[in-house]
């Protein structure tokens, strides 16, 4: 353990164990158990997300409360495994109701889910408040299942949670191939003989198990977030199922541990909201900074594209204004005006492009080689040899691209379906700033382009 991490959680552990220093066995076991639950929730939730059934867990979760209450009323005991078995039974009953409503009444999926969530949760709340009002012995504290409260977990409870979680992860690992073919293309899966209905049932079943196991940590209302948020966060970072699942697991684990630690540090705080907020924080950061899919990455590449485009535009205008032999010289103001018109935003972009072209030595302050002109005002610039080459290359590429589009039109095809590696790169790499990595030119219909005019 790195020293800074130790120092940051030491006070948490100290307050949780009630001693001034050190980690009690009990705390350690509970944290381990909840960490396992967080990991498994992320892994199992990934499958639900990929199958586009993220709300199935929510329906199951809200129903668990009724099961907990009924299990208590039926047995009069309040040990965790008994209550969780009750929770599982009612979760399955809710999911069966969901399927029933959808099949028999032709209600839409989302409406059916909303009905099941509301009704089953209502039943659960009614039962719990009834038990509390009657003051049944041992009935107090059942409402902890509403928001989650890990402080009450015993070592044995935590061990049960951990074992069930690990089993769920093992099941997912074993059946991953089947789950992926089902989620990606259910029709193909059915056509090639996979029992789609059975696989869906297994998927829903294991989600229900995870929701139940997550109850003590996050509570009936919020446990679904443990199943949904980590996979969404993990998806931002990777394009591979094989990496998304373990990553979602790790994010779930981190969120669970952070939530438990925070709730232990401030006795009285429910665990559930803290776990969910931790997961949400990780998710928000992922939305922001993930490579490729993240907001910043997307804004950045849009800005790069815009910059490349206006560099190209400015080069083109310079080429046009510098006369047939390229020795007329250009006036920056005239270039700005022609490149951006009277749009101020356009001019700002264009002037930034001008500066970056000047920095790269593609345009030079004029003088040598320029044709003398009467009444020379002084501020004359010219394209350098490299700039000239780049401007011509850009023209050539535009012609090539037009040629491709013409061909597409002739054959009556949508250009979006054209078989090109990356259409936006057609211009980009021709005018990329010197600082960025120069990519190899694209083979965009190059052979068929008429030789350029120079």
């Amino acid at each position, binding site marked *: 353990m790195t020293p800074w991490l130790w120092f940051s959680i030491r006070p948490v552990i100290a307050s949780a164990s009630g001693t001034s220093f050190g980690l009690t066995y009990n705390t350690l076991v509970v944290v381990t158990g909840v960490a396992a639950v967080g990991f498994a929730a992320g892994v199992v939730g990934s499958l639900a997300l*990929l199958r*586009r059934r993220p709300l199935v867990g929510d329906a199951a979760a809200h129903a668990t409360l009724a099961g907990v209450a009924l299990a208590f009323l039926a047995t009069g005991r309040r040990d965790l495994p008994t209550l969780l078995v009750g929770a599982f039974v009612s979760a399955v009953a809710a999911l069966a109701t969901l399927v029933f409503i959808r099949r028999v009444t032709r209600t839409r999926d989302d409406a059916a889910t909303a009905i099941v969530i509301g009704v089953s949760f209502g039943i659960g709340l009614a039962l719990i408040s009834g038990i509390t009002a009657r003051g049944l012995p041992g009935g107090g504290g059942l409402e902890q299942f509403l928001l989650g409260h890990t402080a009450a977990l015993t070592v044995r409870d935590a061990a049960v949670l951990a074992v069930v979680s690990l089993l769920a992860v093992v099941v997912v690992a*074993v*059946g991953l*191939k*089947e789950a*992926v*073919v089902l*989620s*990606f*293309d259910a*029709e*193909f899966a*059915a*056509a*090639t*003989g*996979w029992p789609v209905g059975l696989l869906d049932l297994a998927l829903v079943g294991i989600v229900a198990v995870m929701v139940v196991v997550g109850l003590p940590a996050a509570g009936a209302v919020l446990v679904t977030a443990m199943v949904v948020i980590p996979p969404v966060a993990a*998806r931002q970072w*990777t*394009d*591979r*199922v094989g990496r*998304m699942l373990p990553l979602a697991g790790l994010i779930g684990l981190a969120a669970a541990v952070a939530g438990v630690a925070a709730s232990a540090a401030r006795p009285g705080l429910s665990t559930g909201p803290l776990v969910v907020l931790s997961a949400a924080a990780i998710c928000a950061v992922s939305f922001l900074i993930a490579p490729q899919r993240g907001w910043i990455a997307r804004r950045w590449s849009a800005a790069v594209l815009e910059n490349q485009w206006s560099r190209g535009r400015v080069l083109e205008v310079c080429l046009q204004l510098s006369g047939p032999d390229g020795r007329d010289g250009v006036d920056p103001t005239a270039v700005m005006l022609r490149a951006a018109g009277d749009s101020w935003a356009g001019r700002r972009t264009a002037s930034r492009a001008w500066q970056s072209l000047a920095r790269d030595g593609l345009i030079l302050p004029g003088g040598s080689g320029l044709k003398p002109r009467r009444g020379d005002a002084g501020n004359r610039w010219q394209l350098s040899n490299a700039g000239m080459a780049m401007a011509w290359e850009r023209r050539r590429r535009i012609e090539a691209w037009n040629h491709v589009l013409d061909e*597409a039109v002739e*054959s009556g*095809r*949508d250009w*979006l*379906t*054209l*078989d*090109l590696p990356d259409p936006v790169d057609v211009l980009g790499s021709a005018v990329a700033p010197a600082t960025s990595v120069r990519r190899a030119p694209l083979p965009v219909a190059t052979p068929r382009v008429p030789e350029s005019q120079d």
Partner: protein
Amino acid sequence: MTQPLVEFHDVTVAYGRRPVLWNVDLTIDRACLFGVIGPNGAGKSTMLKAALGLVPVVGGYVRFFGEPLARVRTRVGYVPQRETVDWDFPVTVTDVVLMGTYARLGWFRRPGRRERELAAECLDRVGLADFAGRQIGRLSGGQQQRVFLARALAQEADIYLFDEPMAGVDVRSQERIFAVLAELRDAGRLVIVVHHDLRTAAEWFDRVALVDMRLVAAGPTAEVLTPINLQRTYAGRVELLEELGQAVAERGRTP
């Protein structure tokens, strides 16, 4: 007598109470490139789905090699329409092609080296060897369709069913796809293709079936694609449009 490769026997399919395909009797007894042609909404795709058990049939049955599908499933390959899947799904091109081998692998067995080599070979055949590691969303429409084609090749089937493989696909991909289909035919496979473009149908397919909610005609392309048959398949729609146009003109508003 040898069994026919595919036999549709009096197949009728209905969505709700509306029949979309009725009394289809069709026997294909030798390997060829077989086109299922007809206007939009004529039940062409439904015909394939009924054959594969993806939609329930009201009556009739479909046999492959004289057997029900369940007994010969690994010998029948299927390529659904491209729009049916989420292309943002986090898998690579190779992952998708490997799915073609899953049915043969059976429960819980993972693809091994043999399957990976097969997948690479199939990708090479459709001209996508360079894209093996790409996420499937970062492909053009034509490339995506070729990924599906490669997945079907990886099934190593004897009969292939394609649902509109040329829809929304650029010319280069179309030619590539057609070349692979012809290769399959030449290797003795039966290739059944749902296709909506009459112009290309005549030059591509050895035999065709004209379908417009029922089987209008079936047989060698030259004998089936006659003006009279085309009239019977497509003309109904034209008349309908004319009637609708008249009704609109008479009432002065949309009916």
